[in-house]
């Protein structure tokens, strides 16, 4: 009996020593290997409360330079916003804010966009996604609690609570559902300042291209307003070609080179 208790105690201690914390899980999710270059087109469906849908199509390209990931999104439809481009540099350095530019073809001008605070929480081109959702969230700006495990769409996931240290964000708390086997995000629930569920992100239609697992559909549902936005990725290409560095520049946006 004593031997059994000792063995159980030892197992518990070892288990505690090797148990992953919420931070560990989110760090691993953050470090999941990504392609150096990616290129795709996507259809954005913006669903209104009344049930009508508006469709936007975009071209997306990104390139990982190690210390910085550069990405560009250019709208191709509808025609009144065609050519509108969003360029962002996400830095690996934890405390360094991203650099963002928005090109507006009607004005033939590029506007610098603030990278922190409420501006980055604004709607991304009328969708339920924010500019912040379109980039990486800084790991050190949140505290993490492992709430348990839950199955999402048949996949066993860690359930990790992420609380903003600043508490100034529109959605200062969110719960991430991270696949236990691959550390890939399956679902995310965003809570507003009143700690009421605000938005729910679900990632589905996973495919593996060149060893990189990718969600082909990402749906952000605003449970408070009854609207939702769906990003459906197509023509996904990873590391197919070395995308020209000059495409990740303001000049490329202004000259309409992202086709």
């Amino acid at each position, binding site marked *: 009996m004593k031997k059994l208790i000792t063995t159980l105690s030892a197992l518990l201690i070892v288990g505690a020593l090797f148990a992953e914390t919420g931070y560990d899980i989110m760090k691993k999710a953050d470090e999941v290997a990504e392609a150096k270059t990616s290129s795709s087109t996507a259809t954005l469906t913006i669903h209104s409360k009344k049930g009508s849908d508006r469709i936007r199509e975009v071209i997306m390209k990104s390139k990982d330079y190690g210390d910085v990931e550069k990405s560009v999104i250019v709208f191709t439809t509808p025609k009144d916003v065609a050519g509108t481009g969003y360029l962002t540099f996400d830095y690996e350095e934890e405390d*360094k804010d991203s650099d963002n530019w928005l090109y507006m073809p009607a004005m*033939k001008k590029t506007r*610098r966009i*603030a990278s922190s605070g*409420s501006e980055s929480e604004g*709607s991304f081109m009328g969708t339920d996604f924010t500019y912040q959702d379109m980039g990486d969230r800084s790991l050190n700006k949140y505290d993490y609690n492992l709430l348990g495990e839950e199955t999402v769409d048949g996949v066993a996931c860690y359930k990790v609570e992420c609380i903003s240290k600043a508490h100034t964000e529109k959605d200062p708390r969110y719960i991430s559902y991270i696949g236990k086997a691959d550390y890939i995000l399956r679902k995310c629930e965003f809570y507003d300042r009143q700690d009421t569920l605000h938005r729910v992100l679900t990632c589905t239609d996973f495919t593996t291209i060149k060893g990189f697992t990718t969600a082909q559909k990402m749906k952000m549902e605003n449970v408070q307003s009854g609207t939702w936005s769906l990003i459906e990725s197509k023509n996904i290409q990873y590391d197919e070609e070395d995308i020209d560095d*000059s495409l990740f520049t303001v000049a490329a946006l202004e*000259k309409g080179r992202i086709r």
Partner: protein
Amino acid sequence: MKKLLLITMFGVLATAALTAEGGVEFSGNIETRWGVAAPWTDSDTSAGRFTIGTTTFTGTIDAYFDNSSALAEGSVTYDAVNNSLEYSVDELWLDYTESIWGLRIGRQKAAWGKADGIDITNVLCPSDMSSLAAMVGDDSKLAVDAIRFSLSGNQFTADAYWIPFFTSAALPLDEGNSLRKFVVPETIEIPVAPGVNLPVTIGGIETPELAIWNGEYGLRVSGYLSAFDLSLYGFYGWDDTPILNYGMTSEAIVVSGKYERMAMIGADAALPIGETVLRLETAFFPQRHFQKEEGGSLQKNQLSALAGIDWMPSGWTLTAQYYCDAVFGDLDELERTDAYQHGATLSVSKSLVNETLELSFSGLIGFNDFDSLLSPSVKYSLSDQISLGASAYIFLAGPDRDGKYGAYKDLSSLCLNAKFSF
């Protein structure tokens, strides 16, 4: 001839669109804009009269193959107020761009500077001031015929322009144009015969000879860094508006005009600071020609500057700007009476209902005369193709003098517009 040229241009490009293997897109829009003078404007000449009545078709053909591209954009406008039909070639260029260099040749547009709605360094393309519809429209700049050579790096770009053919600002000088009186008065009192007024007629406006030595040159060098964006500008060309001279016959005062050389050096910057972006812009015009009251010009140094801030908290866009403009030296003989002119702008907009409804307000106040322009507007996207809008352009005079914007007080208008994009 102009009509034939436009039809031929679109015909050739449309044929190309049909025969080329992909890479050719046709897009455009049809926009109708109506405006009526506000009830509080002069009841004898303005109130209730239509000030804007345009319907415009704009077509764009964009062709691209690897590093090569071409664009043709033209528009046809029917103006119901003036019962006129106008055609214009808005842009028509070919472009070759590689990673580090590029060339664009033809009729093209470019916008310089970080200011919103105010031109500080934005001197490359002239303004369309020919009608109220053009002045309050989204795109009030005219294209220039130019060659642009560009060099680009990861964090900088340089664009050099040679503009061999001068394009002036479009001025409302036609008989019957309601804005003409703001450029030249309808009558002028004869100095030697007080109380006697003669009508004013427009004589010739002398444009620079179309010769290789009369070209314009522009250079923009921009850097895009983590901490800030910075651009430097240089321009040597012609002032877009003419200096006027007054001659007298027994029956009328004859106004003639001449364009003068102009140079500009300038800079702008955009600095993200927390949740805001600070914008700065300045331009120096050495020995610029200024209109003399009695006709002709005097050369003075001029310095313009602007500071603005953008804040975009969830769905709101807030922009505030302060601008100033100083002319150095004695102003006694000039039409301009204030050596230092300054003012401020404020713009607030809010998108609602998944960005289908946009409410906005923009205001501009001149601090010299406390005249202003206020413009509330609402825009609703009926679908991805059709948008409907209502707006007002309210010009308010200052307490003592009308001022630059107050001069237009009788053109204060309430407007409706509808646009279909495809």
